[in-house]
């Protein structure tokens, strides 16, 4: 940006505010650019992002990509990989590759859906606790203690058995149980940002508490929240796969990578029909891994010490 001398400004009648405003915009842009630049340096994160986009495309275009209907019995059962069925067929004769492709929809919906729910709840609860403090904060903290004392997977198992397994219910249960970690994080950010000069200025200007929380404080707490949400999506996908593997998650005939692995609990399948369980297991690992790499990249990029 061109520096404007004081004399020049007076001579040409350049208002100070305009220059300041332009300066602000410029800085904002360069911040995002710096973050993006730092992210691009993290090769694994970039590779992860590319693969993640490919996974989303695979889920979106599953009907075009899958060679067969994932739920229809096509051929003889437990057939090994062949030219017709690249990854063979499962115990009832469905095409494994098609099921693998369709199952990406399940995993991605779980990741996005449950995280969206618990980030929304956690943000509101955490912001309220941090901003108001006092008794409100104490009560919310005790409730968070109760939620965090639940052994996570056990409670999910019990809840899912009661409200019934299935994609929607799992999104709901994971979403309703995941918020305390986000609330803790947001509460911490709000507590530290609350003390800054600009929030005090906003208070002095008479902004409402809601405006201060959501317009002044939250934008500055977004970074850690984004990192947490990314890792949270990976964890949610892992939880769903465990539940489906145990038979309490997404129910057949709907394909999920987790329930495709259930068959491998029989030693015969494990030993002589590896195409039934290794591909879906690898898909879980790859998906969770790339999301974790992206999260790591975002965390590094937002870390001021790394820039």
């Amino acid at each position, binding site marked *: 940006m061109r520096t404007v001398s004081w004399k020049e400004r007076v001579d040409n009648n350049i208002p100070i505010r305009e220059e300041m405003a332009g300066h602000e915009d410029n800085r904002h842009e360069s911040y995002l650019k710096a973050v993006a630049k730092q992210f691009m340096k993290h090769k*694994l994160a970039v590779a992860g992002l590319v693969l993640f986009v490919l996974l989303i495309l695979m889920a979106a275009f599953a009907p075009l990509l899958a060679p067969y209907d994932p739920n229809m019995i096509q051929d003889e059962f437990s057939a090994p990989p062949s030219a017709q069925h690249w990854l063979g067929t499962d115990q009832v004769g469905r095409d494994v590759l098609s099921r693998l492709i369709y199952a990406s929809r399940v995993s991605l919906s779980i990741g996005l859906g449950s995280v969206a729910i618990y980030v929304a709840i956690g943000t509101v609860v955490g912001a309220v606790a941090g901003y108001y403090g006092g008794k409100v904060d104490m009560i919310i903290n*005790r*409730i968070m*203690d*109760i939620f*965090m*004392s*639940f*052994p*996570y*997977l*056990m*409670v999910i*198992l*019990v*809840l899912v*058995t*009661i409200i019934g397994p299935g994609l929607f219910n799992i999104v709901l249960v994971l979403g309703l149980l995941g918020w305390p970690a986000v609330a803790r994080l947001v509460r911490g950010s709000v507590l530290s940002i609350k003390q800054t000069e600009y929030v005090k200025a906003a208070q002095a200007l008479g902004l409402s508490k809601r405006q201060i929380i959501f317009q002044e404080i939250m934008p500055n707490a977004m970074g850690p929240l984004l990192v947490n949400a990314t890792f949270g999506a*990976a964890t949610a996908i*892992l939880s769903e*796969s*465990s539940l489906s*593997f*145990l038979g*309490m998650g997404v129910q057949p005939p709907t394909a999920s990578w*987790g329930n495709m*692995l259930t068959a*491998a*609990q029989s*030693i015969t399948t*494990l*030993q002589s029909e*590896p195409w039934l*369980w290794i591909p879906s*297991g690898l898909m*879980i*690992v790859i998906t*969770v*891994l790339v999301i*974790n*790499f992206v999260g*790591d990249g975002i965390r590094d990029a937002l870390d001021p010490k790394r820039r």
Partner: protein
Amino acid sequence: MFSYTMRRLLIAVPVLIGVTFLNFFIIYLAPGDPADLYANPDLSEADKLQRREALGLNDPLLLQYVKWLGQLLTGNLGISFNSFQPVSQMLAERLGATLLLMGTALIIAYLIAIPLGIISAIRQYSWLDYVVSTGSFLGVSVPGFFLGLGVIYLFGVTLGVLPTGGMNTIGREGDFLDTLKHLVLPAFTLGASIAGGMVRYVRSSVIEVLNQDYLRTARAKGLPEWKVINKHTLKNALIPIITVAGMDIPMLIGGAVVTETVFQWSGMGQLTIQAILSRDYPVLMGINLVAAVAVLISNLWADLMYAFVDPRIKYN
């Protein structure tokens, strides 16, 4: 310190009541009538009503909860709807197996995570650090059951060197060496699945100490590097690592459910799945109670250890 401990214990009581009540409420809402499950299908409506009355299922929610809580104080967790055994006895039978599995897994996790975390912190941004960090991401991204199936496939089926499941070879019950052989694969699976996260924790803890001023002082006064690392860094970096075990307990409990299912390890995790499938509410309540107490105790232990080993932290 003593008053802090007492206060933390007192705070744990309402939390525990909250946890058990929520648990009780959730299970109370459950559809399906346990009186149907093991009763003879030809049983008349009147008989069934009597059954429900006998099991206390007709009482209002709060009364059922208070009754359960009162019984709890006398050490009675109720009778299993399924096997008609006392729940406390069933849990006691299973607890040992689960503790053995979780304890061994925790030790394995420490043995993997501490050396790797320290090395990658000392050689920060080197290729070694890169490999360890990437590996730790792989560790947290592999689902426990897939790792379990993988090691069964490799060591149990293909190489045939270790048993594929169970706790004992038939006919060799009570033989501890035999149990140890059965323990290797499940303990490794569970340990490896929490080691990934632990490596990152150890690494960042060591890096934080490496940036402290007193290390610069130690170097400035001419101490050899190995002494700086061994005497000044590791001692201080290991403080938070001791306490991290407390935070890993909930993860271990969840992981145990999956691991015990894959390896048919007859511990509390396997009992959980059986109780869920047969809607055995008293058993589920008991398991959740034990798990919640374990989580509360481990959190408390982590906080206290933290204060105990690090004099900079003062609680009041």
